[in-house]
């Protein structure tokens, strides 16, 4: 494993059982939420994980923090295989990782003061005495752009953006190496969103913390990520450096998404030719055979419903999960006319 890699994930899989009955539980089927994904997160860098609801991006985030037990696959954190570490041995991992959730209204305990919210991880980890902790809380408040007086307030006294700052301060308390940020700006207004994105960037510059930045918003992901993984129905369909993914996408799903993201430029919107996918994301309970995207893919051929594609390296550092990426790229295979 390369020196600069913090997290390495190989064929990570999570199947949730769907059960029937209350006393005599019977597994009737499984939801294949994450199905064999592989990626790396470099130290101090950001991996953006994009996908629509139900694509498995949040599950992936929770798996690498061991908040969920993986069904199969390997997770290495800083060189150590943490896939099967027993809960008791996870303490070190817990100190070195943390998470920021989407909704700062439900992720902060309404009955606790900001001071207690931010200091809780330090108290649990026996990080230091009360005075040292108080100093650290003040330092963190400075870092996220809140006032020191705010420490004695309750979450309800803050706006959404400020609450997200509190959540970020809490996540930074033990100076983690990795923060999983699960849709951290989706619930915020445009002008507030920009501030929180800037905050994430400036914190990374100063503290060299790595992010797994989960979002459905391609513009946000483009802005903040060094590398991007696009997920669809439990699989990574495209993975590579941000600029490459956004400027030369290879997978038909990524290509389509990039043509339908609303961008605040009427000129750009007028000149582009939106590829609108038909139908909806299928259920992960019974994903389509072959390529999971074939039911919505404008390029799909018969082979796509029979043969499962593997992630192949199309260009340096650029991976794609499509049987016909080359033919599409060379213009041999065009979209179906509808």
């Amino acid at each position, binding site marked *: 494993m390369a020196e600069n890699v913090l997290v390495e994930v190989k064929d990570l899989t999570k199947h949730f059982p769907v059960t029937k009955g209350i006393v005599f539980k019977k597994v009737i089927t499984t939801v294949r939420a994450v199905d064999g994904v592989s990626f790396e997160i470099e130290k101090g860098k950001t991996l953006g994980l994009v996908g629509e609801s139900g694509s498995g991006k949040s599950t992936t985030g929770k798996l690498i923090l061991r908040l969920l037990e993986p069904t199969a696959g390997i997770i290495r954190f800083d060189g150590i295989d943490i896939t099967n570490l027993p809960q008791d041995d996870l303490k070190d991992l817990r100190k070195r990782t943390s998470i920021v959730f989407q909704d700062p209204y439900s992720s902060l305990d309404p009955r606790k003061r900001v001071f207690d919210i931010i200091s809780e991880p330090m108290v649990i980890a026996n990080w230091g005495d009360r005075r040292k902790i108080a100093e650290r809380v003040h330092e963190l408040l400075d870092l996220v752009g809140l006032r020191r007086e705010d420490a004695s307030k309750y979450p309800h006294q803050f706006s959404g953006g400020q609450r997200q700052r509190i959540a970020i301060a809490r996540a930074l308390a033990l100076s983690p190496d990795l923060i999983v940020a699960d849709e951290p700006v989706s619930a915020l*207004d*445009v002008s507030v969103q920009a501030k929180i994105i800037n905050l994430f960037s400036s914190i990374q510059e100063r503290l060299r913390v790595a992010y797994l930045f989960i979002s459905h918003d391609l513009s946000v992901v483009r*802005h903040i990520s060094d590398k991007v993984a696009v997920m669809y129905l439990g699989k990574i369909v495209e993975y590579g450096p941000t600029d490459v993914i956004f400027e030369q996408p290879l997978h038909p799903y990524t290509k389509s998404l990039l043509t339908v*993201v609303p*961008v*605040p430029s009427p000129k*750009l919107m007028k000149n582009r030719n*939106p590829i*609108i*996918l038909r139908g909806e994301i299928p259920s992960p309970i019974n994903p389509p055979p072959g390529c999971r995207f074939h039911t919505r893919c404008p390029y799909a051929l018969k082979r796509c419903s029979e043969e499962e594609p593997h992630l192949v390296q199309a260009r340096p550092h650029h991976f794609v999960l499509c049987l016909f990426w080359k033919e599409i790229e060379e213009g041999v295979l065009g979209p179906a006319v509808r």
Partner: protein
Amino acid sequence: MDKDKVLLEVRNLVACIETGSGLVKAVDDVSFDVRKGEIVGLVGESGCGKTMTALSIMRLLPEPFGRIVGGSIYFEGQDLTKLTEEEMRAIRGNKISIIFQDPLTALNPIMKIGEQIVEAIVAHRKVDKNEAKRRAIELLHSVGIPDGEVIASQYPFRVSGGMRQRVMIAVALACDPVLLIADEPTTNLDVSIQAQILELINEIRRKRGTSVLLITHNLGLVAWLCDRVFVMYAGKIVEHAPTEALFANPYHPYTQLLLKSVPKLDSPRDKLTTVEGEVPNLIKPPSGCRFHPRCPYVKEFCRTVEPALIKVNTDHYTRCLMQDSRYSGEWK
């Protein structure tokens, strides 16, 4: 402006809402118009009064807590604010329809989808049940639900979010309205589904000539669909213009900052420009220009002088003293 073509004209609308901490003038002297066959955007951040404006037009403010306290809303020549509830009911859902952000709460959970569309039809049209049913299924087809017969017999919770939004659009279109108000119609939807719904709205305008008032916080949607756009801030319209003019040449500092603070697909990864401070509390709105506490160009008199909407170009107006000839010299 061609007066014949104006369908909806909101003039000096003032609407208040009573909250636990005081009376809020959520819509403060708002004027705009929607012409026939046009898609007009009303953009702003949460709490700027855009939804209150929509509810005022529909006369759906939660009385007695919220009410229209001034101004008029002319629709096809009559002032909606003066109508009785009964007269209004003949227009609502018939000539003007609304689609809300969250279809799960807007649709009746214990009524089958088909029945909800039928209900909307028979409320305004003298047709028998069978004819209404036939029309309901036709409507489901027209909003892109191919197996309308199957979906019509389902309850809303059984279908996906995108599908529910289509159903709500079908209910809204039941009586072929001339004005469709869409309040954040795609905010809860995935990108690929959002694209489907936006194209559907576009198609409805194209095929039926329906005017649309699109209420959103997303400037991308405005760029995609709207012919003209009105920007709201703290209860007031601060700028309005044809869409291309507004994006190419925004005059109001708030519009400028809003446009710059959105991460774009094609922009470099610099620091995003942000608007300092927070949206003001409307119980006690800032004096003078409402944007002055956050404005990077603020001058002393901005705190006291209330700016008027000033024409800066054809059909392009802005509420900023920088464009007011009596004050603009101060910025030179």
